[in-house]
C-alpha cells in the first residue's frame, strides 16, 4: 500500500530523511521507532502528502502522490486515519464539535444523525459524559481517545496512523490507548505507530523500523530488535529503563 522510494527530506538546512526506501502493506502492524528528531512524524506527514519530499517518490496504492496537488490528495487521505501527537483536537470546539467536524465536512448527515453518531463513537471509548466539555478540560488519555474516534468518524480507514499515541500518558492510560488501537485493528486493518516507547511498540506491532540519522537502521520483527548488536538500539532500549530487554527476553 505504501512505498517510499529513495525519499529524502530536510527542514531547511537540517536533513531528516536520507534516501529512505521501504514498503508497508495495509494489513501490517508497524512501529516506527527512534529518538526525537529522527523523522518519525515526518514519515507520517509524507504518507499523507502534508509534506513534499526533496527527492524520491512516494506511492500509495500504486499512485505516485509526490507531485499531487492539495485537492488531489483529498481522496488519498481518506484511506488513512491519523491521530497526531497529543490528539490535536481543535481548542475552540467542544468534544462533540470535534468529533462531528469530519462528519460535517465529508457527509450529508442531518444534525440529529450527527449527534447520534458522535454519541455512539464516544460511548465506544467511555466518553459520552464528556460530550460537552472543551479539550482543555480533558485529561491526556481522554484527549487521545476523542482524537482516535474523531479520526474514524466520517469514513472507514484502510490503515491507521498514530503519532506518539501514548507519549505523556501514565501506564494505565497508555494501556487503555494500546488496547483501543488493537481493538480498532482487530478486523485486520493495519497501522503504523510512531513512538519512542519500546514497551508500547512491542505490545502493538509485529514489524519494527528503527530510524537513525535519516536512514532505517533496522527493519524486522521483534526477534531482530531483541537480538540486534547495534549499539544505537541497545542504548535506546537501556535508556528506557526497560529491564526485560536487558537479557534479550521477549516477555512483553
Amino acid at each position: 500500500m505504501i512505498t517510499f522510494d529513495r525519499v529524502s527530506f530536510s527542514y531547511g538546512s537540517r536533513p531528516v530523511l536520507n534516501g529512505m526506501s521501504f514498503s508497508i502493506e495495509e494489513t501490517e502492524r508497524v512501529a516506527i521507532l527512534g529518538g526525537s528528531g529522527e523523522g518519525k512524524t515526518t514519515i507520517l506527514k509524507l504518507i499523507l502528502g502534508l509534506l513534499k519530499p526533496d527527492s524520491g517518490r512516494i506511492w500509495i496504492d500504486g499512485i505516485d502522490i509526490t507531485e499531487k496537488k492539495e485537492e488531489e490528495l483529498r481522496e488519498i487521505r481518506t484511506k488513512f486515519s491519523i491521530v497526531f501527537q497529543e490528539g490535536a483536537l481543535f481548542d475552540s470546539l467542544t468534544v462533540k464539535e470535534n468529533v462531528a467536524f469530519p462528519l460535517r465536512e465529508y457527509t450529508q448527515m442531518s444534525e440529529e444523525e450527527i449527534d447520534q453518531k458522535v454519541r455512539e463513537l464516544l460511548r465506544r471509548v467511555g466518553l459520552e459524559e464528556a460530550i460537552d466539555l472543551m479539550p482543555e478540560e480533558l485529561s491526556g488519555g481522554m484527549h487521545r481517545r476523542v482524537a482516535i474516534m474523531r479520526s474514524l468518524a466520517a469514513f472507514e480507514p484502510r490503515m491507521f496512523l498514530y503519532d506518539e499515541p501514548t507519549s505523556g500518558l501514565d501506564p494505565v492510560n497508555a494501556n487503555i490507548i494500546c488496547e483501543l488501537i488493537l481493538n480498532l485493528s482487530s478486523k485486520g486493518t493495519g497501522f503504523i505507530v510512531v513512538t519512542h516507547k519500546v514497551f508500547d511498540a512491542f505490545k502493538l506491532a509485529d514489524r519494527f523500523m528503527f530510524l537513525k540519522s535519516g536512514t532505517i537502521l533496522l527493519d524486522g520483527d521483534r526477534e531482530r530488535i531483541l537480538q540486534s548488536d547495534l549499539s544505537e538500539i541497545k542504548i535506546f532500549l537501556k535508556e528506557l529503563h526497560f529491564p526485560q530487554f536487558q537479557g534479550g527476553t521477549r516477555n512483553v
Partner: protein
Amino acid sequence: MDYAGSGSLLIILLISLFIGMALSLQLSAELSRVGLKMYTGKVVGISIIREIGPVLTAVVFAGRVGSGMASELGSMVLGHQVDTLRVFGVDPIKKLIVPRVLSAIVMLPALTIIGDAASLMGAYYIAVFVSHQSGAFYWSSIREVLVYENVLAGSIKPFIFGYLIACISCHMGLSTKGGAIGLRRTTTKAVVISFIIIIIADFLLTRILLYLLGFTV
C-alpha cells in the same frame, strides 16, 4: 469579530481619549503663544481624523488582535491542528485566514470611527474646561473639518491597515516553527512587521490620497 471588535473597544477608547486630550493640551499651549488658540479644534480635528486616529487604532489593533492571530495560528500549527484540517480536506486558508482577514477589514474601520470620536471628546474636554475655549466654537471647527476629503482620507486607511495586519499576522502564525521559542519569535515578528508596514503604508496612502483629492503640498 467579537475578539477583534468589542474585545478591543475599551483599550481603543481609553488610548484615543487620552491621546486626544494630550494633543489638545499641546496645541492649546502652543497656539495660545501666537494668539491662535481658537484653531485648536480645527488642527485637532484634521490631525485625528486624517492621521492620528487611523494610525493609532491600527497600531493598537496590531498589538492586540494581530499578535493574538499570530499566536493562535502558531499554536494551531505546533499542535498539528492545521495539519488535521488538511487531513479532513479543509483548506486552512478558507477556514482560518479568510474569516480573520474579513473581521479585521470590518472591525478596524469601526474601531477607528469610535476612537476618533473618543479623541475628539478628549480634546473637547481640554479645550473647553482647561484651555477655556468656547465649546460651540470647538464643535463648529470640528464640523468644518468633517468634509468629504478629510473623511475619505481617514476612512480608507483603516480598511487597508486591517487587511495588512491580518495578512501579516496570519502569515507569521502559519509559518511558526520550533516550539515555544518559535511561537514567541512569530508573535513578536508579526507585531513589529505590522507596525513598520502600517507606518510605511500610512505615508504612501497619505501621499496618494493628497494627490487624488487635489491637495497641494
